[in-house]
């Protein structure tokens, strides 16, 4: 297999991009070298996360969203767009069935769109460990919009919020009452909430319930203006920018493309808000900090693993199992054994 030239990627060569994605996903040396070369060219793309429970229609929504982005009217130049669709790896076999492309047939034949399926490979939280790195490749290759679709898990896939600039949470009618939405924790990460399949019975109820849940947790800008200083006094100042965005709740029907011009308009609004409020900078910082910490953790762990012998580890573990050593003491012993 020939080594991929980073210049080809920067030029947007699709075969080079595709091969690079594989190297990076497999955490090979070549992959890391490519990331080194590409990193200075990143930081330009608008990263849009799409998450929600299984069966809410995430893939179909991504299909329509991408399709509408590519069909801008009035001679405007359509943005180049990449999709990363993550599906779960089977914990039993290590294999995966990646089926998101089935719903993305409308994007076939468009050279401005690149769809890549990705298996979660054992990581939790709705993304794969390498998802952030794949994003870097598309970003460096000049894709202006990168849509990341998470695994449909429902209640805990909040990792996407620290990766994406704008997070869309997809709901559908008939998936449980308001209590589910409070429990989920994914309402808090939504920059835009979508009620997909809004032609189904119960859609009005779902829309209403979500809107009322949001008003409980989010002060509207006019509320802040109205109550002025009192509101601000109770809130830490660095939380203010995010509370100034009030999450819109939009109905869509992905199978026929209804509601998508509105969704794209809201995404543009959100991007505008991020840039003007300084929130963009804040999220970038947070995202890179997350990545740095994860890298640091992995690297430290690998170094430690290389320094500790398997027998020493087993011996310590045996002593913990026989209650001769506490787990806390064991950690100390193992770290000291590696000279850390």
């Amino acid at each position: 297999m020939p080594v991929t030239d980073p210049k080809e990627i920067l030029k947007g060569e699709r075969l080079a991009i595709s091969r690079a994605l594989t190297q990076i996903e497999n955490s090979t040396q070549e992959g890391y070298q490519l990331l080194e070369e590409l990193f200075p060219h990143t930081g330009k793309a608008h990263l849009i996360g799409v998450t929600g429970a299984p069966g809410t229609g995430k893939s179909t929504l991504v299909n329509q969203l991408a399709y509408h982005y590519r069909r801008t009217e009035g001679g405007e130049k359509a943005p180049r767009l990449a999709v990363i669709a993550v599906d779960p790896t089977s914990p039993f076999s290590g294999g995966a069935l990646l089926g998101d492309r089935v719903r993305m047939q409308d994007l076939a034949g468009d050279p401005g769109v690149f769809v890549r399926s990705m298996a979660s490979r054992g990581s939790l939280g709705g993304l794969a460990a390498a998802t952030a790195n794949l994003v870097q490749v598309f970003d460096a290759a000049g894709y202006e919009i990168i849509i990341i679709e998470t695994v449909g898990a429902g209640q805990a896939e909040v990792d996407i919020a620290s990766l994406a600039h704008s997070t869309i949470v997809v709901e559908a009618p008939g998936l449980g009452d308001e209590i589910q939405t409070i429990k989920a924790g994914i309402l808090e990460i939504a920059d835009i909430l979508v009620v997909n399949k809004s032609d189904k019975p119960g859609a009005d109820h779902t829309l209403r319930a979500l809107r009322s849940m949001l008003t409980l947790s989010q002060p509207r800008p006019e509320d802040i203006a109205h109550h002025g200083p009192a509101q601000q006094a109770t809130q830490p100042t660095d939380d203010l920018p995010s509370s100034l965005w009030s999450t819109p709740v939009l109905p869509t029907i992905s199978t026929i493309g209804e509601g998508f011009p509105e969704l794209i308009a809201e995404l543009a609004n959100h991007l505008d808000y991020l840039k003007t409020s300084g929130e963009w900078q804040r999220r970038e910082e947070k995202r890179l900090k997350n990545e740095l910490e994860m890298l640091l953790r992995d690297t430290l762990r690998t170094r430690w693993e290389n320094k500790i012998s398997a027998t020493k580890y087993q011996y310590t573990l045996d002593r913990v199992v026989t209650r001769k050593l506490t787990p806390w003491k064991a950690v100390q012993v193992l770290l000291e054994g590696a000279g850390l």
Partner: protein
Amino acid sequence: MGDAQEKIRVLIAKAGLDGHDRGAKVVARALRDAGMEVIYTGLRQTPEMITEAALQEDVQVVGLSILSGAHMTLVPKVKKMLKEQGLENVKLFLGGIIPDEDKRELEKLGVAGIYGPGTSTQVIIEDIQNACQ
């Protein structure tokens, strides 16, 4: 840094105009259970769509399922287009009802494996694993 891990990536596509996808699904599932990453594209794929998906997904293997009788038109076309895109290393496998004389011709063309009804999924798994070594 992190451990390198390679997985066999396979594209399973229903080429052309037939809706019989049970076989393709059975194979996709079996390959997944054998630890491969299977990209399933669904029905009515043109050679153009199959080639584009193979390129974007960087698969080592493309598995075509054809039960319409159009294999002598579709398979050479897919083979040719893969080559045009720089994907000549991608192994092509075929499932369907393929007469013996066609089988010989397709194998000459470079199709790595052809499987008819009743084939054990274990055979397909092993052939793919061997082809990807």
